[in-house]
């Protein structure tokens, strides 16, 4: 077994990793739509999806079936190449961008050490930016190829918006690069490790030994630019329903629409992961290393959650819910107890636990903003990007370099 791994590991392991990642991400996308609908519904004092399965938990499945079974009409006069290529491009680029993200520290399974991510490239940040830079073509082509004036306007807006915000996005990261001195996302995270836990993350940037400076300005600029880059509220002008029907994907239905949808949620996950890595210490725990008791935090969260789901499930209205929910609760509780009993497994999941915890918080923030903020007007968006975000991120670069120079002396 280990001989085969040593010989062909470079080929087998990435394939397994890609399969797992695609499965996990697509499931996560599906449940992200459920979470988004639920959270926004509760913000607006509604129930959200609650008919399909207990608490609407099977809604993503129903949506998936609907996407496959719906009729897929093609409008007259479309540019066929662009029309068919655009959704594939969007989904492909969104999924590819996840390949360079490290989800945790290196892991060793059955004596085989590998990085927790698909590819460990020394310029991973640049690769990520290169892939997101190409992402605009999916939307622009969809808008232009659909032979529809609303779609065209959506595509145009999207290209203009992405050109404007890509600059601010890239510049807001330069401060972090100056601190890390490296383009590798793994090194950027490792550089943020310190005895003080969350105080040495880039957003606070408290560290004694090397040149470091708080990146709070860069962090805010990055987050705003990232929302514009992923076309989310309040910058979702390419698909502004009130003005453009559905913007660039007006003429898309069925699976082709689903591809845009999955692409959007996947790039949300990618951007949240990047945000976590750059400013919030990636997979690092917020507590100092010496606090070993915090390693039991996954169990401490899982066991009460499982018990609560079990208790809540027994009182659920439908019979299906009274079976599924207590079952899920029992699984959660068992997982929590298992993690407590097997410390080696517990150590293994520490990195991913914090990483996905932080990514989940960022995603929740995304949804929260969608439920709270109104959409920008188009000229406001452009003014904001060029006249505020860009100068501020350039100022951050100058400030950070000056402080680092001064501290190094």
């Amino acid at each position, binding site marked *: 077994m280990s001989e085969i791994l040593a010989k062909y590991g470079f080929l087998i392991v990435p394939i397994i990793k890609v399969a797992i990642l695609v499965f996990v991400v697509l499931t996560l996308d599906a449940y992200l739509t459920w979470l988004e609908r639920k959270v926004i519904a509760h913000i607006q004092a509604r129930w959200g999806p609650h008919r399909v399965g207990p608490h609407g938990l099977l809604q993503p499945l129903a949506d998936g079936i609907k996407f496959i079974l719906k009729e897929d009409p093609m409008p007259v006069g479309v*540019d066929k190449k662009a029309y068919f290529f655009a959704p594939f491009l969007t989904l492909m680029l969104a999924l590819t961008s996840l390949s360079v993200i490290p989800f945790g520290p290196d892991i060793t399974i059955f004596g085989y050490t590998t990085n927790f991510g698909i590819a460990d490239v020394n310029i991973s940040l*640049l690769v990520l930016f290169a892939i997101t830079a190409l992402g605009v073509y999916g939307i*622009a082509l969809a808008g232009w190829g659909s032979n529809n004036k609303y779609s065209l306007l959506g595509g145009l807006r999207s*290209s203009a918006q992405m050109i404007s915000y890509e600059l601010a996005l890239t510049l807001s990261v330069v401060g972090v690069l100056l601190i890390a001195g490296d383009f590798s996302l793994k090194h950027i995270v490792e550089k943020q490790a310190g005895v003080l836990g969350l105080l040495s993350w880039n957003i606070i940037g408290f560290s004694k030994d090397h040149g470091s400076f708080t990146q709070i300005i860069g962090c805010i600029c990055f987050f705003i630019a990232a929302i514009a880059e992923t076309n989310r509220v309040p910058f979702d002008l390419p698909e502004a329903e009130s003005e453009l029907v559905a913007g660039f994907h007006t003429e898309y239905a069925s699976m082709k629409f689903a591809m845009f949808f999955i692409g959007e949620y996947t790039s949300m996950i990618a951007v949240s992961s990047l945000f976590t890595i750059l400013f919030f210490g990636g997979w690092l725990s917020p507590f100092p290393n010496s606090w070993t008791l915090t390693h039991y935090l996954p169990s401490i969260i899982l066991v009460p959650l499982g018990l609560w789901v079990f208790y809540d499930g027994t009182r659920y209205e439908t019979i299906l819910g009274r079976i599924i929910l207590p079952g899920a609760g029992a699984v959660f509780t068992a997982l929590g107890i298992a993690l407590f009993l097997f410390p080696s497994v517990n150590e293994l999941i520490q990195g991913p636990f914090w990483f996905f915890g932080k990514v989940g918080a960022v995603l929740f923030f995304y949804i929260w903003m969608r439920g709270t903020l109104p959409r920008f007007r188009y000229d406001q968006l452009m003014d904001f990007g060029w006249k505020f975000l860009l100068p501020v991120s350039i100022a951050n670069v100058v400030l950070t370099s000056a402080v680092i120079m001064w501290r190094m002396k």
Partner: protein
Amino acid sequence: MISGVLVIFFVLAALAVLGAVSLILQSHPIHSALSLILVMVSLAGLYLLMGAEFIAAVQIIVYGGAVMVLFIFVIMLLNAGVEERTNFSKLATFGGIPLALALGGIIAAAIARSSGHLPPPAASGAMSSTRELSRLLFSEFVYPFELTSFLILVAILGAIVLAQREN
């Protein structure tokens, strides 16, 4: 001996050439622009193969991303339609074709003469690291670098002046 690297090289080279040919043959400007993007991305792949990772990434970000988005944006904004086919002009027939053949011949001759002792593709090690690249830019090549930035600044000012004139 055909190694994996060689196979990837030929695939990328073929894609680049195909993209370039399709750029000329396509009748719609958007399809031409898309072919150009294909050329840019395959070129980035070729750079990557030579070990110049930074250049490859920047090639995609700047040319594949920013520059070509502007091209596509302008084509879409002007709503340029399918271009009309014209017959070869006399200049193209009598001047262009011989010149193209001559250029192809010169390149082929240069490759044929130097085959067997081609220099290694990249000064890897010195150029591959971004740190080394930036050190070179700001020490040895600082004047060309500053001149280029000056040129870009002038171009930006020119663009602003042109845009302001209408108001």
